[in-house]
C-alpha cells in the first residue's frame, strides 16, 4: 500500500476544490439554503407539521443529504474526468498507485467536499430551526455512508464518461429526479397508493429517512436505508475498483 501516495492524492483532491470555493462550496450551499428558505418558510408556513415536526425542520435532513450526495458525486466525477481530459491521468498511471490507492484518494477527497457542503447546509438551517440531533452515531453513520456511496458512484461515472455531456448525465437525469422524488420535501409515507409503493422503490427515500431518523428521531424505516447504503457501497466499490484495476477508458 502506497500510503504517502494515497495521502498525496487525497490532499490534492481537497486542495483542488478549495482553490475554487465559490464554485465548489459556496454555490451549492447557497442553492441548498435557498431550497430551505423557499420550501421551508414560504411554502412550509401553509404546510403545517409533518409527523409532528415543523415542516421547516422536517426538510433539513433531506437538504443536508442533497448537499452531500450532489457534491460528493460531482467532485469525484468531474475531478477524474478532467484528469483524463487534461492528460494528467498519465501522472497517476505511471506512479505506483494501484486501484485501491486511486479509489481511496478520489473518494475521500469527494467525501470531504460532500460532508463540508452538507454540514454547512445543516449549520445554515440551524440558524432558522435551531439545533436538532436525536442520535449522534446514527447521524454520523448516514452522513458518512451517503458521502461515500455518492463519491464512489461519481468516480465510476468519471471513469466511464468520455464527453462533458456524459458527465452531466447522471446528476441531471438520475440524481435530480431521484432526490426530488425521494422524500426530501415531503413524507412519501403520506402519499396515496400507488405512489407510496412506487416511491418506496426509490433508494434515496430510505437514505433520507435514515438521516431523518438520526437527526430528528423519526422512525420511518431507517434500517432499510442503512442496508441499502451498505449494499450500494459494496456494489459500487467492487465495480469502481475493477474499472480502476483494468484501466477502463484510461489505458488503451
Amino acid at each position, binding site marked *: 500500500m*502506497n*500510503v*504517502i*501516495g494515497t*495521502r*498525496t*492524492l487525497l*490532499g*490534492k483532491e481537497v*486542495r*483542488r476544490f478549495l*482553490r*475554487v470555493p465559490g464554485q465548489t462550496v459556496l454555490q451549492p450551499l447557497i442553492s441548498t439554503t435557498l431550497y430551505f428558505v423557499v420550501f421551508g418558510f414560504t411554502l412550509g408556513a401553509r404546510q403545517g407539521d409533518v409527523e409532528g415536526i415543523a415542516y421547516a425542520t422536517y426538510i433539513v435532513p433531506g437538504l443536508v443529504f442533497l448537499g452531500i450526495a450532489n457534491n460528493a458525486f460531482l467532485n469525484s466525477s468531474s475531478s477524474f474526468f478532467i*484528469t483524463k481530459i*487534461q*492528460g*494528467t491521468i*498519465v*501522472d*497517476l*498511471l*505511471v*506512479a*505506483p*498507485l*494501484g486501484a485501491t490507492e486511486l479509489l481511496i484518494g478520489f473518494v475521500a477527497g469527494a467525501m470531504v467536499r460532500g460532508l463540508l457542503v452538507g454540514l454547512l447546509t445543516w449549520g445554515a438551517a440551524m440558524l432558522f430551526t435551531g439545533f436538532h440531533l436525536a442520535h449522534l452515531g446514527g447521524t454520523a453513520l448516514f452522513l458518512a455512508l451517503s458521502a461515500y456511496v455518492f463519491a464512489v458512484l461519481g468516480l465510476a461515472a468519471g471513469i466511464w464518461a468520455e464527453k462533458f455531456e456524459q458527465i452531466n448525465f447522471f446528476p441531471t437525469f438520475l440524481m435530480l429526479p431521484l432526490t426530488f422524488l425521494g422524500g426530501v420535501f415531503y413524507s412519501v409515507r403520506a402519499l396515496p397508493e400507488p405512489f407510496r409503493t412506487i416511491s418506496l422503490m426509490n433508494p434515496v427515500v430510505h437514505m433520507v429517512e435514515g438521516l431523518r431518523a438520526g437527526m430528528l428521531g423519526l422512525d420511518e424505516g431507517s434500517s432499510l436505508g442503512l442496508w441499502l447504503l451498505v449494499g450500494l457501497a459494496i456494489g459500487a466499490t467492487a465495480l469502481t475498483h475493477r474499472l480502476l484495476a*483494468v*484501466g477502463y477508458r484510461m*489505458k*488503451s
Partner: protein
Amino acid sequence: MSSVLEVERVSKAYPSLTALFEVSLSIEAGEIFALLGPNGAGKTTLIGAICGLVRKSSGRIRLLGVDLDVDPVTPRRDVGLVPQEVNFDPFFTVRESLALQLGYFGRPRDDARVDELLAALSLSAKADTPTRALSGGMKRRLLIAKALVHRPKLVFLDEPTAGVDVELRRDLWAYVRRLRGEGTTVVLTTHYLEEAEELADRGGIIDKGRLLLVEEKSALLKRLGERRLHVTFQHPAPSLPPGVSGGALSEDGRTFTFVERAGTASCAGVLGALYAAGLPVADVAMTPTRLEDVLLRVLKGGSGAP
C-alpha cells in the same frame, strides 16, 4: 551489466491494427538506449505497455526484475516517464506539481530535491507560477522535472524535445548525460536523430510494430552508415590514380566524390592515395555518417539485420 528491463515477445493488437508484433528487447543498467522509428511505428505503444499506459495483448515484461503480470505497481516506484503529450494541472503551481508527483511515488516531502530540479531545468523563476501560465517550452521542462523528481533508476523520454527550442534541447542533453553519470538508465524515443546520435549508447529501430534491429550505436553507424568524401582539385585531374577504386570523378575533372561503406576502402585511405599520386588537392570536405541515413536504409529494407 544487468538488465533493468526485459521485454519478451510483446504484442499489442487493436481491432484494426497490430501496433506491436512480438517485440523483444533488453535494456542494460546505466545505458542510454534510443528507440527510433517513423510516426506510428510503435515506439510510444511499447513505452506505454512498459509504463502502465497500454494493456499489452501478449508477451512478458520484467521491469527492474519484477514481472509486470505478477506485480504491475511496485516496480513503478523507480521508473519515470516524460510523455509525448504535454499535460499540466491548472490548479497547481510548478512547485506544487513537483511536490505532488514526488508524493504519488511514495516519497516524503523533499524541498531540496524540488529546488535542485527547478534549478537544473531553469524553472526556478517560475516555481510559484500556476502551470497554466507557463509557455509551451516551460511546460515541457516541467514534464521532464516531474519524471525525474523521485530519482528513478529508469527513465523513459518519449520525444522529450519535440517542438522545443534549441536551448532546452541542449539543457536536456546535458541533464541526460548527468543522469547517466549518476547511474540512471535512459530510454529515449526521438524524431531528432541528432539527439539519439548525441546521447545514445545503443539504438533500436522499430517500424510497423516490429523491432528491426538493436545494436551499439557506433557499430550501427559503422555497419550501416556511410561517409562521403568530397575533394576539389586546383585544376582538372586527368584520371584517378590506380590505388583508388570506387568514387566518381566529375566530367570536368575538378571534383571527386567517394562514399565509404562497410566493405569499401576508407576515406582516409583514398585521400592518402590522391595525395600520394600528386593530385593538386584544393579542398576536402567530409559528410559524416548520420543515424538518419542508417534509419532510412533500414526502413527501406537494407538493414542487414541478423
